[in-house]
């Protein structure tokens, strides 16, 4: 066992490190180090412009989408080279926040299901950061039960073959900045729910698309509602067959869970630093055995995730495929960061109630407290992730689904009468 690079890996690491030193926007580094979930932390310049500029530079060197094929704008590198890049990119990766959904979710789906011409047209601008993608999946009536979605796509009456879309999506990250959207819709309500779905992509500038920001529980506006009123989509923008949308969506969802889980931190180093700075009754808080006990429980979750990641990297380094143990990432990190935030506030005593840049740790833990409930829901709720572990890793049977063989239009929609 060792944590060393192979000679080839070390050479690649030296190469990308030199390239980053020569090309990265070092002037933004102090701001980038304060980045919060889903934002770059950059305020001195337009973060979108800074992100696009970094993306373009990376693309020219092949570092924008390392493991994508070169013909679609990628770098054609191996999975382990991608890991080394992300270790070296460090805080600069936060500049890529607007492109995460495109790279992690929409791009892989387009790559798997679009025509060759479409891939050559759509993917390179995504890689260069010129075009931003969003994912139009969740609905007010269908989140964890995604296949229960109600947005309808019907063939246009004019015989053009186009589709006319009506309905509403919700929780769409970055819709307001997006050029393209990946849309799943219902094309047949007369068959069981999973069978009547179809996937499309569309320009977010299409007439009839209306984006409304959602004011979140923490006061931010990261997510949107997207309304569709008689939105016309050409049949050529369909991904997969009519009725195959569920299968297509699984490409996206698997990528979503992998891309979110693989880069999550529990915030333990920040928590430890906070506790080191606090006192209880005139003595260092770290001397208190109750504090130590709680802190230790966070320490082992944090290191457990870290070394689980290293086991996956080991598998990649040997040319293998990581095992199922990586499915625990977001489930562990989501709860850990929420509990760590509550613990941090508790240690601050009554002052823990205060927020803003002038309070302990710059108000980081108060922000995490208010943002972390979303982390435990987005991209697969804790409960969905437990189902996935139970079913796919442990081999337990699926829950019995009372709506499984019922035509979608006959599924009850109200709980109490």
């Amino acid at each position: 066992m060792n944590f060393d690079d192979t000679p080839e890996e070390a050479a690649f690491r030296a190469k990308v490190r030199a390239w980053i030193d020569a090309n990265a926007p070092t002037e933004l580094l102090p701001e980038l180090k304060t980045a919060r979930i889903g934002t770059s932390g950059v305020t001195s310049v337009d973060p979108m412009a800074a992100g696009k500029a970094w993306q373009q530079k990376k693309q020219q060197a092949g570092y924008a989408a390392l493991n994508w094929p070169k013909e679609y704008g990628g770098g054609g590198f191996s999975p382990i080279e991608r890991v080394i890049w992300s270790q070296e990119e460090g805080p600069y990766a936060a500049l890529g926040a607007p492109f995460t959904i495109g790279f992690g979710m929409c791009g892989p789906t387009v790559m798997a299901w679009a025509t060759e011409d479409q891939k050559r047209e759509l993917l390179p601008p995504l890689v260069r950061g010129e075009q931003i993608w969003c994912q139009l999946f969740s609905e007010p009536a269908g989140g964890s039960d995604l296949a229960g979605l109600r947005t309808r796509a019907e063939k246009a009456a004019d015989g053009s073959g186009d589709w006319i879309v009506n309905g509403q999506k919700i929780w769409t990250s970055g819709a307001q900045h997006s050029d393209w959207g990946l849309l799943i819709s219902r094309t047949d309500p007369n068959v069981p729910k999973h069978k009547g779905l179809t996937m499309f992509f569309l320009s977010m500038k299409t007439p009839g698309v209306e984006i409304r920001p959602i004011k979140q529980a923490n006061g931010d506006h990261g997510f949107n509602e997207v309304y569709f009123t008689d939105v016309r989509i050409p049949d050529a923008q369909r991904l997969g067959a009519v009725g195959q949308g569920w299968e297509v969506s699984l490409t996206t969802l698997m990528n979503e869970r992998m891309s979110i889980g693989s880069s999550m931190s529990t915030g333990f180093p920040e928590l430890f630093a906070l506790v080191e700075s606090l006192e209880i009754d005139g003595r260092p808080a770290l001397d208190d055995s109750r504090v130590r006990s709680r802190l230790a429980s966070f320490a082992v979750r944090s290191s457990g995730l870290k070394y689980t990641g290293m086991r996956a990297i080991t598998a990649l380094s040997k040319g293998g495929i990581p095992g199922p143990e990586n499915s625990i990432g977001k489930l562990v990190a989501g709860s850990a960061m929420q509990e760590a935030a509550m613990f941090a506030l508790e240690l601050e005593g009554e002052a823990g109630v205060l927020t803003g840049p002038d309070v302990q740790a710059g108000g980081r833990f108060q922000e995490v407290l208010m943002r972390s409930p979303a982390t435990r829901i987005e991209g697969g709720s804790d409960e969905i992730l437990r189902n996935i572990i139970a079913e796919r890793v442990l081999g337990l049977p699926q829950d019995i689904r009372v709506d499984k063989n019922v035509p979608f239009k006959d599924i009850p929609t109200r709980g109490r009468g």
Partner: protein
Amino acid sequence: MNLDFSDDQKLLRDQLRRFLADNCPPSKVRTILEGPEAYDRELYRGLAELGVLGAAIPEAYGGVGLGRLELCVLAEELGRVLAPVPVASSIYLAAEFILTAGSEAQKSAWLPKLASGEAVGTFAFAEKPGRVTPGAIQARVEGGQLRGVKVPVADAEAAHVAVVAARAQAGEAARGVGLFLVDLSGPGVSRETLSSIDPSRKQGRITFDGAVAEPLGAPSQGWSTIEHVLDQAAVLIAFEQVGGADRALEMGRDYALDRMAFGRPIGSFQAIKHMLADMYVSATLARSNAYYGAWALSTDSAELPVAAATARVSATQAFQHCAKNNIQVHGGMGFTWAFDCHLYYRRSNALALALGSQSEWEDHLIERLRRQNAPAAA
């Protein structure tokens, strides 16, 4: 990056798993649990013949001179089957103490016998309830004679030789405590086996009344040697716990697939699925942390104190979590003597106390992280 066992080590694991499937079924664990035998001698002899007891003992002292990663592999497999043998006492502790601190004569006298299984060793540390601190040690050596009572001592009855922590001549030993080697067949030693929550690994009391005790290592090094060897053993015990947690999770999963209630396998109910998923999460975190410990152990890393405490805290949590919820998944059947669930529950709670309780290791972990984070003294 290579945080995994080598192909040879994986072959060893497969070999051990087959050997233990044949030679250590649950019925063997029950024989020791329910009977007067100190341990399963036949199984111990078999392990010695495979050469694994001497995996980390140099060839010059009768071992096979592989390394401590092989001991990690052995520990995980012993933990999976709850092997009722004194490997932890004799190999992770006594042999390591003698290797670390022993004189040439002490090594030559004891290590070949420990490697061959001809002799069993143990470590006599605790004397009364509560954390073992230097001040809590009252056993004393004067004029080469040891007096005091050690309780509990794992494998007290099985052992031929004990490494004993005792107070030494004033002014000689760091924090007043030194290490001594005592041949338990000599005069002035009396032993009894005590009842415990896990009689598949016996606990006992050793009373020393003028037993001949030779110093093991320099008295000034006594306490730091204890801390170092306990850290090494903590990684190995963590692997036993990881093996036990995995097996308890498998038992729960298998039962959930077979047991029907309300016309369906109970494993289709989310209450059960989510409980098992959470057990998988604990077991996975513990395994990854144990690998970190294995790396530190096998490379003599300066990170061993942090890595050992990390591995230990995580593994204790996982084995207790999996063993108690394995009973819960089994329902009433899990609380019968006939089902094996209680064997894992017993072992998980006994191992949680071996080498010091969870809160002690949590304490160690945070104190050591604090030291590791502190800027190096100029």
